[in-house]
């Protein structure tokens, strides 16, 4: 196939370079343009056609939920991940973290080869050498017969690997591995096990009459958030009988913001409330203990009693976590939830066999005592996750042989003395059992990104393969591992063998179960808790895993760093949430650098006044503050050489933000889980201030009716279309009547008599703009509906769009100008220069004075190019770089754009984004896709260069692809035949795309929904994006706050 030698691989990724070339070439020679070389295959691979995508089903490993993936590969490279529609867990949806797996695969900081640390310096070794060293190391420990003291800490995953690993360890006389997942909720798991006998019953929000969450952030990172979100959205989108959702906790997380009612108890107050609701203890006592309004609590109690079955969830992470979880389980049982909204019969097996923090701490203690002979770490990063107080580093240093299988530099890997990088899950074989009875298969969707440096080992092996090789070197163990590699092992273990596996791979699914690990009950470690009451400080310190970066794993993926936090909208920085009222009292403004001090440590970070945090508490997210900065041999993509580079956790995460673990004591609760809310803290102003890298302009919509809502009660009244708050009528408006069909009033004469003049029509032929034109564009009107009753604000659509449309990230500290310019992470964001084509606006309603109150509402609005039928941006462009296509698209022609930016000035929705720097040009420091990140670029979409405007194109490349396919098959487009990236990824199915001019498309029907409205209708822009009003379920008596 045809490729450029200079840049082997992805085409069309040097848009402006070429533009430059053309003009330069012309100026220089006139006729000779450097066109490069064409490099053919040696042997063309079967099942791929150059320039045509191939799709592989596999399994997502970004969290323990194990969602199904469909990986789109082009010319041997994975370029996009979609959810697997047939998968029982995620039904085709995919969260932001799942989308970003690609940036793990192509991460520029991935280890290219094994490395060994000799005398404090890292040096690259061959694969053979690495494997030999490993097996020698193990043999020694066995010789010294200290194998029993080995510790293998693995990132928790379901499937066959854990058992395989145990067998391997057992083979060498080592104890089973610790399967650690820092994001798992130990208390909930323990309570589930005690109550239902399974770790994680599947939840059904649909069947609940009311949903109550005690700090269980099932939309952020608690449990398996994609299926939960899907189900929650379905439940809430039911226009009658949708469950009310009450959130109880000191901080309103993304989940809390989606609740109809927030009961803001103070940290630790949950237990009293849960008990009261469970019937133990009186309401008013609970109210006083938890510091909440008694009436509200009473109302909730009665409501719970009235609406059965309920779905009550507990995600509390205080010292009382387990008790709350158990109380909650009691409430559920009382309201007959078991089997209806909580289904122990279909457990999510992904949560079985998780080793909790207490076991990890136990291992650490053994290390400190010098009992540990060899330690393996794979995918986990305890040096970062365990509070400084645990002195992990010192203990770890006492282990003679420390092996890391991590593919990225991180704090723990740095402390090791042998690195054997694992393959990425998209490069390797595996399986999982996401839900009992279903095996989800994981197959490599492409060859390993990096070549091996060994003659005898042709392809870089994954950890499992390495283990097998090691085993083969040892006579006693070899027998147990007959299979040549892990793939063979899997096939052997698969019910039905190779045949069945081959049949199952296309769908990536098979019926059957994977035998679970046989685990001796973990030695009960006494919980180490210091009562939060006893700690010093005026504020409770709430810490929580970031919904995007998780417990910190995502920190080196620019997509996730740049993706604004769904709640605070801050990116590329840590922040400290404090309630505006408190902030005012202490004279703290947004961006003031605060110093937070606890008994265990001190951090400094900018303040973010946030309505949704208890006034006696401050909140800090985890995920940033990676500090590892050992000199690692780093492969330089430019020079293709290996050099000593200070990478730390990776170029995107390095020296960025703070690590809240520094503040926490080493605390585990009764279930052995880590206590996130473990201490109080004192806060003081430092006097410095820095602009928070936030995409938020004004958090209020000033009555402009951008995000509209309607009360469920009003919804079924006649004329509900106008229900909810109508935005104030502006004098001189056109009719506010909703315009169905969305035909552009201007499309007909947009380009005048453009058609080819023929004698018959004297040039009056409107060509493309004639509806019966053979080229058949004018008969379509591409449009989109966004259901605000479904949208939870999770922001997955943004990442999906970034991946599909080659949208550059701009926040890295080197992506600013050079001379006398701020070199600070997120600087471009503080300048409002973010590039994401779709953004999630988060507007607050009610509680305008910023006093501490619980009755404020949040509305999320995905805002993207509205593809106006009568677009203000079009007439002002001097060169027709943006214009109206006959099929209703508002088109941006990058290569025609000269960059006057007039279109953006004239866009009421402000959805046009400008390339301030050469984000798309390989040879610039601002380049957003350093090798090999650029392997992910979508060849169907131009990479925009310096100085051009860009914006949402309604995935025009997908429209063209579908049209091409239809034409080649001599048929019309079928309704709902394809959809756009954001709609495809959306885990709450809020976005629908299609041809609104054809009633058979779903979008055409939704566009006429009674909740439908256009944003800024009064401007007569005839937008093609239709929003469906959010539906509020206020508590009886209360009314939804107005804008």
């Amino acid at each position, binding site marked *: 196939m045809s490729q450029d030698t200079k840049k082997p691989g992805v*085409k069309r990724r040097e848009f402006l370079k070429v533009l430059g070339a053309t003009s330069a070439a012309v100026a220089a020679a006139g006729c000779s343009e450097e*066109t490069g070389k*064409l490099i053919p295959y*040696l042997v063309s691979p079967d099942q791929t056609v*150059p320039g045509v995508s191939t799709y592989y089903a596999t399994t997502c490993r970004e969290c323990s939920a194990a969602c199904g993936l469909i990986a789109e590969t082009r010319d041997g490279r994975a370029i996009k991940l979609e959810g697997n529609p047939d998968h029982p867990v995620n039904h085709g949806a995919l969260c932001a973290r799942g989308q970003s797996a690609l940036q793990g695969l192509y991460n520029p900081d991935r280890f290219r080869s094994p490395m060994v640390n000799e005398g404090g310096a890292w040096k690259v070794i061959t694969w053979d050498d690495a494997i030999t060293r490993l097996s020698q190391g193990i043999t020694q420990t066995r010789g010294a017969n200290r194998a029993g003291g080995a510790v293998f800490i693995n990132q928790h995953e379901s499937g066959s690997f854990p058992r395989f690993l145990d067998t391997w360890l057992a083979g060498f006389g080592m104890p089973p591995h610790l399967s650690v997942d820092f994001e798992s909720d130990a208390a909930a798991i323990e309570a589930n096990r005690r109550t239902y006998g399974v770790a994680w019953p599947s939840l059904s929000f649909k069947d609940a009459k009311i949903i109550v969450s005690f700090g269980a952030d099932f939309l952020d990172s608690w449990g398996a958030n994609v299926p939960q979100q899907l189900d929650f959205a379905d439940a809430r989108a039911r226009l009658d009988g949708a469950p009310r959702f009450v959130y109880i906790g000191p901080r309103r997380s993304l989940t809390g913001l989606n609740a109809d009612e927030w009961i803001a108890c103070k940290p630790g107050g949950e237990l009293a409330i849960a008990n009261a609701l469970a019937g133990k203890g009186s309401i008013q006592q609970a109210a006083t203990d938890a510091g909440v309004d008694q009436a509200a609590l009473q109302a909730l109690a009665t409501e719970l009693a009235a609406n059965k079955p309920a779905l009550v969830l507990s995600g509390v992470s205080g010292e009382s976590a387990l008790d709350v979880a158990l109380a909650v389980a009691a409430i559920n049982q009382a309201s007959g939830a078991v089997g209806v909204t909580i289904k122990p019969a279909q457990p999510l097996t992904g949560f079985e066999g998780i080793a909790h923090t207490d076991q990890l701490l136990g291992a650490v203690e053994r290390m400190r005592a010098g009992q540990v002979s060899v330690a393996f770490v794979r995918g986990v990063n305890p040096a970062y996750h365990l509070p400084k107080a645990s002195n992990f580093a010192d203990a770890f240093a006492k282990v003679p042989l420390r092996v890391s299988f991590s593919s990225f530099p991180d704090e723990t890997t740095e402390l090791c003395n042998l690195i054997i990088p694992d393959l990425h899950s998209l490069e390797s074989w595996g399986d999982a059992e996401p839900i009992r009875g279903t095996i989800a298969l994981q197959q490599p969707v492409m060859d390993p990104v990096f070549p091996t440096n060994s003659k005898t080992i042709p392809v870089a092996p994954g950890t499992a393969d390495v283990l097998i090789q090691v085993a083969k070197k040892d006579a006693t163990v070899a027998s147990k591992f007959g299979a040549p590699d892990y793939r063979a092992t899997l096939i052997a273990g698969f019910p039905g063998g190779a045949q069945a596996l081959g049949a199952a791979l296309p769908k990536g699914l098979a019926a059957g179960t994977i035998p679970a690990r046989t685990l001796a009950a973990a030695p009960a470690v006494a919980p180490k808790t210091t009562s939060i009451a006893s700690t010093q400080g005026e504020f409770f310190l709430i810490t929580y895993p970031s919904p995007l970066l998780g417990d910190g794993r995502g920190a080196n993926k620019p997509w996730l760093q740049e993706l604004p936090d769904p709640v605070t909208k801050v990116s590329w920085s840590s922040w400290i949430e404090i309630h505006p009222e408190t902030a005012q009292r202490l004279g703290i403004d947004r961006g003031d650098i605060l110093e937070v001090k606890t008994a265990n440590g001190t951090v400094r970070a900018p303040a973010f006044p946030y309505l949704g945090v208890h006034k006696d508490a401050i909140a800090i997210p985890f995920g940033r503050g990676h500090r590892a900065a050992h000199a690692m041999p780093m492969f330089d993509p430019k020079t293709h050489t290996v050099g000593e580079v200070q990478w730390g956790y990776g170029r995107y995460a390095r020296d960025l933000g703070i690590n809240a673990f520094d503040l926490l004591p080493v605390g585990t609760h009764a279930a052995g889980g880590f206590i996130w809310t473990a201490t109080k803290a004192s806060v003081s102003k430092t006097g410095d201030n820095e602009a928070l890298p936030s995409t938020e302009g004004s958090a209020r919509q000033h009555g402009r009716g951008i995000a509209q809502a309607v009360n469920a009660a009003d919804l079924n009244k006649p004329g509900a279309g106008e229900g909810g708050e109508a935005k104030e009528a502006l004098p001189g408006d056109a009719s506010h009547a909703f315009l169905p069909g969305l035909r552009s009033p201007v499309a007909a004469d947009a380009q005048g008599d453009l058609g080819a003049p023929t004698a018959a029509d004297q040039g009056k032929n409107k060509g*493309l703009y004639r509806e019966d034109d053979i080229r058949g564009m004018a008969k379509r009107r591409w449009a989109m509906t966004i259901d605000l009753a479904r949208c939870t604000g999770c922001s997955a659509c943004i990442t999906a769009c970034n991946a599909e449309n080659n949208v550059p990230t701009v926040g890295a500290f080197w992506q600013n100008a050079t001379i006398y310019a701020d070199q600070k992470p997120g600087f471009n964001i503080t300048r409002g220069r973010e590039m994401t084509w779709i953004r999630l606006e988060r507007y607050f309603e009610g509680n305008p004075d910023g006093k501490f109150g619980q009755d404020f509402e949040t509305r999320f609005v995905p805002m993207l190019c509205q593809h106006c039928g009568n677009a203000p941006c079009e007439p002002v462009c001097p060169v027709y770089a943006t214009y109206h296509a006959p099929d209703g698209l508002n088109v941006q022609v990058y*290569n025609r754009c000269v960059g006057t930016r007039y279109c953006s000035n004239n866009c009421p929705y402000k959805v046009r984004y400008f390339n301030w720097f050469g984000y798309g040009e390989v040879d610039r420091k601002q380049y957003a896709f350093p090798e090999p990140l650029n392997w992910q670029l979508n060849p*169907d979409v131009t*990479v925009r260069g310096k100085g051009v405007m860009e914006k949402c194109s309604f995935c025009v490349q997908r429209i063209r692809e579908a049209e091409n396919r239809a034409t080649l098959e001599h048929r019309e487009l079928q309704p709902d035949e394809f959809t756009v990236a954001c709609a495809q990824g959306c885990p709450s199915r809020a976005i629908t795309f299609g041809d609104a001019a054809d009633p058979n498309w779903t979008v055409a029907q939704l566009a006429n929904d009674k909740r439908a409205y256009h944003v800024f209708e009064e401007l007569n822009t005839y937008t093609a994006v239709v929003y469906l009003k959010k539906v509020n379920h206020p508590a009886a008596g209360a009314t939804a706050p107005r804008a």
Partner: protein
Amino acid sequence: MTQRRKWTAIPGLLALAIGAAMLSAYSGASSSQHHSPVQPINFPHPVHVQKLGMNCLYCHNAANKSMDPGLPAVSTCIGCHNIIGPDRPASDLGPKRHSVELDKLYKFADVAGMGAGMGANAKPIPWVRIHKLPEYVHFPHTRHVNAGVTCQTCHGQIQKMDRVYQFASLNMGWCVSCHVNGYSAKEGLQAAGYAPPDSGANAAAAPATVATGERKKARYDCANCHY
């Protein structure tokens, strides 16, 4: 008007004309049309296409199903040239001779000798690219090929080129004019350089549209190629 006044108009018009010309030149009107670089192997299209009657799609096998036309893998060449070695007997293709070009091919493919097949150190052939559209232009070969646009319409009569050169200017006006004014199968066949389709045997074989000479128009909407 008098002579003198006429005369005064000339410099003005001249200035305008020069200005326009310079702008056109600067704006890249001059394309790389007609350039014909030396290839690592002087592949004789005429022999393969005209004498042996091979179909374009045999080597450029993706042209009818992908954006990319596809370039023959080295193995494709060796497929035949495993048996057809550099030493050529006298035939209708010419007198007995030794083909230097095939030696080059064997070198690239690391072929020990006839029938040996590709060697371990085979290297792809670094063909010099001739036809290149800018990166921001999306040209689906499949749409055009399946619409009956003959290869020669854009690439010229490659079957007659001893050394391939860029036939069309490939600039935007060239594309658009065809999309706007349309294209008839008849023209296509004529462009291909074979006997006019309505003559003799061809008439039967020719597609129906040839007789009618119906012109097929295409979209000239910017977003059809630029996105």
